């Protein structure tokens, strides 16, 4: 169990990431706030919770764990974390989506700390399968993590990859679904029958863990110890989240998939984030 101090530290980091994300998007006038906020706590748990094995000073260190942000549109939150950890200068965040900046609206691997080009959905899990399979073939002990959206799970390719991972018993592959229940223009349940999501992944041959994606105790209980897992199956962590988490008027509100707050609205959003409980 993480200590109270750890939880406090992670909560503070999550608040910082959300504020910085909002600053980036407000400055650029574009971005994907809703999805970035729904997966912020997952990213913070991975990067600050002692989960990922990384070396910011050597981004291509062969022994690093591989993390793929398959829902590439949520990159703003990840950019803030990578800058904070020293993968690239903080000043680059201020130039997000500006001419000459390395940080675009979807992440690509020209950015230190980013493993794969993503943005079109349904690619990351397959790429993750390849990395995990390569580790198996090479006898390497790195783990591969893939963060997907639940809307992304509408892509057929995701399920092709799910079957492949199960067939090859890629126990070194950990996928996480940011399960905020929404896609761009609708609630998922109004688009397609994605639920019961956990049962689907189980039926596809995965171990499945369901967690509260905004609770660090819950997240770390699923993420801690994955390196010592004895199961032969790949692991799916379904993280129940809220789109736009942290700003009440954005939460579970479709318009904030890629809406950008301005003026008074932006001020209210910053106030809400600063008031989040740490």
């Amino acid at each position: 169990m993480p200590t109270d101090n750890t939880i406090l530290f992670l909560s503070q980091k999550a608040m910082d990431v959300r504020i910085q994300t909002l600053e980036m998007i407000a400055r650029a006038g574009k971005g994907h706030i809703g999805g970035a906020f729904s997966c912020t706590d997952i990213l913070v748990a991975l990067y600050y919770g002692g989960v990922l094995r990384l070396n910011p000073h050597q981004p291509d260190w062969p022994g690093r764990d591989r993390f793929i942000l398959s829902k590439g549109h949520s990159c703003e939150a990840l950019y803030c974390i990578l800058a904070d950890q020293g993968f690239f200068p903080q000043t680059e965040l201020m130039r997000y989506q500006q001419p000459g900046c390395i940080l675009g609206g979807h992440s690509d691997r020209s950015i230190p700390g980013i493993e794969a080009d993503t943005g079109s959905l349904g690619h990351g899990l397959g790429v993750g399968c390849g990395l995990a399979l390569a580790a198996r073939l090479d006898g390497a002990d790195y783990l591969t993590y893939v963060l997907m959206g639940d809307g992304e799970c509408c892509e057929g390719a995701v399920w092709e990859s799910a079957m492949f991972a199960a067939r090859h018993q890629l126990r070194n592959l950990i996928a996480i679904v940011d399960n905020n229940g929404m896609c761009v223009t609708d609630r998922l349940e109004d688009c397609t029958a994605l639920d019961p999501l956990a049962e689907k992944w189980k039926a596809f041959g995965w171990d499945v863990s369901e967690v509260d994606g905004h609770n660090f105790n819950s997240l770390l209980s699923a993420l801690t110890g994955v390196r010592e897992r004895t199961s032969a199956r790949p692991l799916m962590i379904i993280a129940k989240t809220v789109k736009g988490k942290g700003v009440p008027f954005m939460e579970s509100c479709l318009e904030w998939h890629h809406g950008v707050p301005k003026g008074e609205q932006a001020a209210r959003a910053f106030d809400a984030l600063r008031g989040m409980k740490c």
Partner: protein
Amino acid sequence: MLTKGIENKLSAGGVDVRDAFFDELYRLAGEDRNVIFMTADMGAFSLQRFKQDFPKQYFNVGVAEQNMVSVAAGLAMAGKTVFIYSIVPFVTLRCLEQIKIDLCCMNLPVKVVGIGAGVMYGGDGPTHHALQDIAVMRTLPGMTIYNPSDALLTQASVRLAYEHPGPVYVRLEKGCLPVLYEDAAGGFREGFAQLRAGKDLSILATGLMVHQAIAAKEILSRVGLSVAVFDVYRLKPLNEQALLDIMLHSPRIVSLEENSRIGGLGSSLIEVCADAGCRVPFFRMAWPDGHCREFCSREHIHRHYQMDARNVAEKILAWTRNT
């Protein structure tokens, strides 16, 4: 150099070009254990020993081409050179976006091998025909495309693909095609080769159509037309300067390909001319913009679309007389 196996088969009367490819891939996989082969449930006789002898380098991913491309990308990111294989439309168009993003955007050494160039799958219909792949694949930044025309060149395409650091597409034939190349001197680095000399016009062909071009040349020689034949086996990147020189120094140019007339070899060559500000008499012979629903052999389909050697010769002759 010819390898012993292919030498023996050639002297015995021919070698299946698909076997030439997979036999060479087998040798390569034995030399480099980082060579991985993935198939979307397509087999070949010559693949059986690969699967048997290199089980850790052979994966049948099932009928799941999109995943195959993405998995190959992940393997390549970890240092593997991956050959992925299926029927042309399935391994190119079905998973085009994965090829664009996972392979080309990230410039990864994954080699897309498609069997069934043009209408090779004849009676199987438009779902299995490959008449758009050249046009589509050549628009992808960073993609290299080979369309080999005989066994030796097909064999060489394995090493050419392997040695190239980025993605490659190989458009594969099958069956025993007549020998065009006696040796691999030069290593097929030029991207094209002159196979026959002629002074009245030049046919620039690719793939199986190189053989039609040679046969058409023989027919046209009987009416006094002297025809040069070039095999453009690397469709991207084209050897633009050398091909432009050829086009500028030939009285007439004919392009000949088993692909839609939109976007293929002919289009590529015309773009080269246009970009150089050159006007040359140019006759583009390719497939019409439509779905081929002639459910019969490749040879019959060629005759139906007037792309067999006799019709090619007649159309070229008519063109030379009317222009």
